[in-house]
């Protein structure tokens, strides 16, 4: 019994130690910055007493909360659209019975073999005023060269389009796994009981694949709500997101690590709460099922 306990502790210690060293401690440091126990670079000195001033200012700032809400909306749209687009693909791969499904799956994730930065920058070539799309529109006589569709780049649309493109493979994989692993005999049973194909999908396939769909949704939502690379490359002023503000407060703008830490912790807390809520929802559904 003792040996078993020791084995368990031995197995758990490395990952828990890793989690503590590289997650709990850094978050603690950021929390210390947010209340000015630790302080970032400053040209102005200051008293550096423990203070909740930055938290107070944050919760009374319509600007930062407004930006956060804007980022949440953009991420929700991206997540929903991507899940909507990826589901039929994953459905086809998992349930069509094609022998080439793993080849097709490999093709789906092929863009991951190139760098993230390259994939985002490629969209600048496609969406720019003299890019592929606008050149085509001019060539087709749909737009004049002096009036290209400039909203394609440096806009919220551009950010959401690129994020959707980047995250589709991540979304398709968990849905594919959940669809492939469920018992097909349930579909046969549904058909035997008189359900149409659409009815079987709505009452059997979709509910059983929901854990995968939820996981996929979170896979996109969590990273995109704090995204800053894509908006900084294709977002312009209107595509500026919450993650950009955090990044700017720490480095690109004037150093204000206290406010930056508050913004970062708020994001972390919201994501943690949402993840917990989703997990709870799934457990309830599974228990009810």
């Amino acid at each position: 019994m003792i040996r078993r306990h020791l084995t368990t502790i031995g197995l758990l210690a490395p990952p828990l130690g890793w989690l503590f060293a590289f997650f709990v401690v850094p978050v603690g440091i950021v929390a210390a910055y947010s209340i000015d126990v630790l302080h970032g670079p400053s040209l102005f000195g200051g008293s550096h007493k423990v203070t909740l001033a930055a938290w107070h200012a944050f919760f009374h700032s319509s600007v930062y909360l407004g930006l956060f809400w804007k980022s949440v909306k953009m991420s929700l749209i991206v997540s929903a659209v991507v899940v909507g687009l990826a589901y039929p693909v994953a459905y086809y791969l998992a349930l069509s019975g094609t022998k080439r499904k793993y080849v097709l799956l490999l093709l789906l994730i092929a863009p991951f073999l190139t760098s993230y930065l390259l994939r985002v920058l490629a969209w600048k070539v496609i969406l720019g005023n003299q890019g592929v799309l606008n050149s085509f529109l001019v060539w087709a006589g749909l737009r004049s060269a002096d009036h290209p569709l400039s909203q394609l780049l440096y806009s919220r649309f551009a950010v959401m389009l690129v994020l959707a493109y980047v995250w589709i493979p991540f979304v398709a994989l968990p849905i594919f796994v959940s669809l492939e692993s469920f018992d097909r005999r349930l579909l046969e049973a549904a058909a035997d009981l008189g359900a149409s194909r659409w009815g079987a999908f709505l009452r059997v396939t979709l509910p059983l694949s929901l854990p995968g769909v939820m996981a996929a949704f979170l896979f996109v939502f969590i990273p995109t709500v704090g995204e800053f690379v894509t908006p900084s490359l294709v977002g312009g002023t209107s595509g500026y997101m919450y993650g950009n503000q955090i990044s700017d407060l720490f480095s690109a703008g004037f150093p204000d690590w206290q406010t930056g830490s508050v913004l970062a912790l708020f994001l972390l807390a919201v994501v943690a709460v949402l993840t917990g809520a989703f997990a709870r929802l799934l457990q309830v559904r599974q228990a009810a099922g």
Partner: protein
Amino acid sequence: MEGQDVTERRLSREDLLKLAAVTGGAAIVGGRAAVAGAARTQLAKESGRLQVLDWAGYEVKSLWAPYLQKYPGQNPKFTFMTNEANALAKLSTGLKPDVVRPYVGYVTEFAGSGYFQPWNPALIPNLKQLNPAMVKAGQYKGKQWGIPEDWGFDAILYRTDKVTPRARSWSLLFDDRYKGRIAWFDDLNQLVWAGYYLGFKKPYDQSDAELKRSQNLLKSKKKLVRTWWSSETDMQNLFASGDIWIAFAWPADWVAMKAKKLKVAYMYPKEGALSWVGMLMLGKGTPRPQHAHAFANAWSSAKSGSWLENNYGYGHSNTHAHPASQDLVRALKLKDPGALSEPHTHIDRRVPRRALYARLWEEVKAS
């Protein structure tokens, strides 16, 4: 925090013992000449490549060629900064450059930051050729903290074939007719030019009410702006591709766009352009003081200055440096004695409430 002069810097007990051992041994063997030689050797014994934290584009060898003549093969290692705040963030996270280039408005703040020490003017012979007013601007508490090198303007670059300004004014940066074709600079100085546009007396030191008006102006006009740039290369690419027609820009951007055969003009607003002087500053406790001084001396040479003017369209503090092209002479207003003084231009200066300006600018971006 007062820094230390290279020649006066205090040595640790260990350093003193080492120096005593070296010079004492030499004195026994060769007398006073050997002592001086040993001291020089000790000073010259600087290991590693010079570390320079600078703006992208200034890594070009022609700008510090005399340094390489003195130390052949010892190319400095460059790290890039996008603005002074970015440099400060890098310093605070452990980067220890030997030389950094903030602009004149930051000299006193950087001098007081604890990351820098004054230069020894005796080790920079070319200092005598530099514009005395600019040299003075690099002084703080009687010591030379900044060596002035490049200077130039913040003004407006625009396409003459696409844009017809209603006035020679900062207002071109928020002209409704060019919505989506305008780029601002990602810097708190946007509040400063907004202050000049609004006619405030001290845009570098605006009152709370004035700052609110400047911020509201920028917030209300932000919808017209395609992007705010922090990388000059990105902005030039956008301009060259036709994505933007109007930009808050530097003279080098005008030179670059002309080289691409674009029809461009560099407008000095009637409210006054902003102007700046780059100041090389010496890292505190640098292990390579001789190399750092040689680097600053190289940058201060007339040859480097002329190269800078001819190729980047910036001015240089060396009074013997002159651009070859009359276009550049006109662009830099080198024949206009009042060009670099009020009210034609507003030299970058210390912003007493810079942190507040920064926060308000971040709020403009987030709004």
